[in-house]
């Protein structure tokens, strides 16, 4: 492990608010330790900017452990930067070289309007969950946990999907600004489990159609999987598409029911 300080040049998108035009600003950042996380490098730059009387760069972050999904921006055109399966907060400067030029931009997608600098508004993800990303069980009265056996491979697959942190990198990486990876992960986590079966078809239609209100369409570029800090597989998109096709059939009128 080398501890020699590095000098990094950053080209950062600055935009005070959605109403004002943004532009790139260039910053020279000497004295970067390889042990710093990427966000600690930005902390360092921000401290220096404030000492120079300049407003710090706004960026979302919180847990800095790669689990809350708050952080993330494009680093040289890659969502969360060059390291696979790694959120920006877990990316460390030892992955870069002295003298590197890095361009930082916010997630760019119609579904994620800009708030400031590198911060975007991802509340559209909450709208997708609100549309059906849950099992409708109220508090109380649940049967004993072991009354619902779940085969281990099913539980593991559901967990693979549920690992999604909702950061939005999949949307940012997609040339269409599509949210299929996020939506399918959230959907299939529940659709795979026995607990999710009662509402499976309603959930599928409601989540998919809400997604389409805000985001683009999937054309199988697979950029989302490559950008995902949790390595969520695009297999879940295939499962979602299958469920959506089935849901169209299953949603037909059942015996004794009237048309809505």
């Amino acid at each position, binding site marked *: 492990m080398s501890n020699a300080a590095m000098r990094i040049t950053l080209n950062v998108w600055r935009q005070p608010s959605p109403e004002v035009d943004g532009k790139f600003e260039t910053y020279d950042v000497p004295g970067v330790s390889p042990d710093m996380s990427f966000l600690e490098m930005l*902390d360092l730059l921000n401290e220096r900017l404030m*000492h120079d009387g300049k407003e710090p760069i706004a960026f979302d972050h919180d847990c800095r452990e790669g689990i809350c999904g708050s952080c993330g921006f494009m680093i040289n055109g890659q969502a969360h930067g060059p390291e696979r399966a790694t959120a920006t907060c877990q*990316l460390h400067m030892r992955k870069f070289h002295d003298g590197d030029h890095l361009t930082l931009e916010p997630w760019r997608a119609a579904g994620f309007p800009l708030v400031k600098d590198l911060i975007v508004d991802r509340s559209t*993800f*909450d709208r997708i969950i*609100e549309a059906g990303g*849950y099992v409708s069980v109220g508090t*109380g009265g649940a049967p004993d946990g*072991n009354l619902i056996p779940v085969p281990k491979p099913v539980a593991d697959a559901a967990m693979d999907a549920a690992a999604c942190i909702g950061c939005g990198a999949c949307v940012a990486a997609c040339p269409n600004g599509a949210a299929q990876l996020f939506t399918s992960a959230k959907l299939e986590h529940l659709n795979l489990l026995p607990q999710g079966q009662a509402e499976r078809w309603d959930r599928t239609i409601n989540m998919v159609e809400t997604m389409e209100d805000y985001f683009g369409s999937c054309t199988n570029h697979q950029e989302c999987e490559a950008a995902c800090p949790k390595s969520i597989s695009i297999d879940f998109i295939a499962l979602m598409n299958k469920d959506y096709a089935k849901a169209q059939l299953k949603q037909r009128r059942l015996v004794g029911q009237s048309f809505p």
Partner: protein
Amino acid sequence: MALESKIPAGPLEEKWDNHKFDIKLVNPANKRRFDIIVVGTGLAGASAAASLAELGYNVKVVTFHDSPRRAHSIAAQGGINAAKNYKNDGDSVYRLFYDTIKGGDYRAREANVYRLAQTSVDIIDQCVAQGVPFAREYGGLLDNRSFGGAQVSRTFYARGQTGQQLLLGAYQALMRAVHSYGVQLYPRTEMLDVVVKDGKTAGIVCRDLNTGEVFSMAGHAVVLATGGYGNAFYLSTNAKNSNVTAAWRAAKKGAYFANPCYTQIHPTCIPASDEFQSKLTLMSESLRNDGRVWIPKRMDDTRSADQIPEADRDYFLERRYPAFGNLVPRDVASRAIKHEVDAGRGVGPLKNGAYLDFTESTERLGHAVIEERYGNLFEMYERITGEDPYKLPMRIYPAVHYTMGGLWVDYNLMSNLPGLFVLGEANFSDHGANRLGASALMQGLADGYFVLPYTIGDYLAPLLGTKPLSIDDPAFTESEHSVEEQTRRMLSIKGTKTVDEIHRALGHVLWDNCGMARSEQTLNKALAEIPAIREEFWKNVCVLGENESRNQALEKAGRVADFLEFGELMVLDALKRNESCGGHFREEYQTEDGEALRDDENYAYVAAWEFKGTDTEPVLHKEQLNFEFVHPSTRSYK
């Protein structure tokens, strides 16, 4: 004002059931006539908001995050305890109760802890029904593991992401309530004041973080589920935005702050690498199930860990605590590691850690099993340190992790301010002086799903027919003005010290003098130094930009201003508690072999502090702890 804990009479195992029957109910058709404001959307807040809305109450939810799902509960790794006895190893509600009381070093209420153990089993059922993907055995049933401080396997887990999965379960329940029960969600909104009128909680004052607009919200009751204050130390395992602001501003309006000196230092965190470090990262306690903690016997041993033979290693936890070994509770393990590092035997470039070694368990269980159990934690370790823990042992050192202290609440989880309820880490109630592993998730969800939804009715029922206070009332407008005035003041100082520089200075003082070990001398030193840092803040802080658009430095400044006041209370509480218990270790009070020495005769009480002004000493109210069912003994893990 006397503290009324409202602990029900009767046998321990009947208290909660009797209480549920005795307290007042709100008729289902009348619940919609009550407005409840929930602040915070972690496990406690999200589960409470969803459950209250399902009952029919009008619920408003405030979070400073962009989405409720980002609350810091999400980062809990290891698991959640429940007395299910699925493993047939002798667990029971009473054993979980007993372990928690003992683990808390006999500084928690028996009745609260017993209720927590009782509800633990319902939490698992509820979460399974929601679709939380807990780990399963091949037969499809739920898997369990053991966890620090327990001799049974009662911990349920979802890989190393249990907190994430439980929070997503609660978040999904909340979003369902937004969709189906009319919950109003206010993301990117920070609560900055509690409004009290005629001795009752009337609502809160908030700031929209994107526009800077300050506005009021009125309700019949306010629920704070705003987490702990570990970030007072600057470096902790808490998320960067975690803060004491909501709880502290409530304290300044008259809510008592209880046991602020009880802070938990988690033994297995990655040691700091240098001064730019922004936070510390926890490595789950579950690692101690299969990892063995050691340091080289020779002080000047410069060999790489894998070159040091068994004979030259000191497995000091196994040596000192043969019965519990590497699984001793957090406070005990942390102090033992500190003891070795302080003696100069630490490992790593800065000699600030101990090894956590998986060689033996990898040989016994195979690489695949270790990867299945801890794969994501090993990856995280490698990402942060650049070292591969499959090849070299991890380096660990204790870090501030959790705070057992919090706003004082009665058995109903209501503070001394009528109508102000406090849940989860933000209250003081269940963990005494030390929390056991996998119990924080349990408490957050117990409070939110299964305690508050019943107990809040007892307060609300008599208020039927009353309207919440108008937000045009002077109580609200004056509070809005004071919030706006503080913002204006912070922006106008235009000094030369950044908020982080001041926060770091406070953190150093607290860690050095009120950290893993404290003494009368260090605490007095801290009491002398903190006011100077506070003064520097108000004279020389640099907050650039404006109020009217997103301003993260301004948000941080408000939170640090509160830490600067609160930190002093934490030190004062530590100074006045002349004993050692759990996470509060006073160097003057220890046994011959360096263990915590309690003083049950004089200090078996909850210290609840009443704020009297920033430069005035707060007033101490004592709630005596009575142990009717368990006899406090010296904690021994040998």
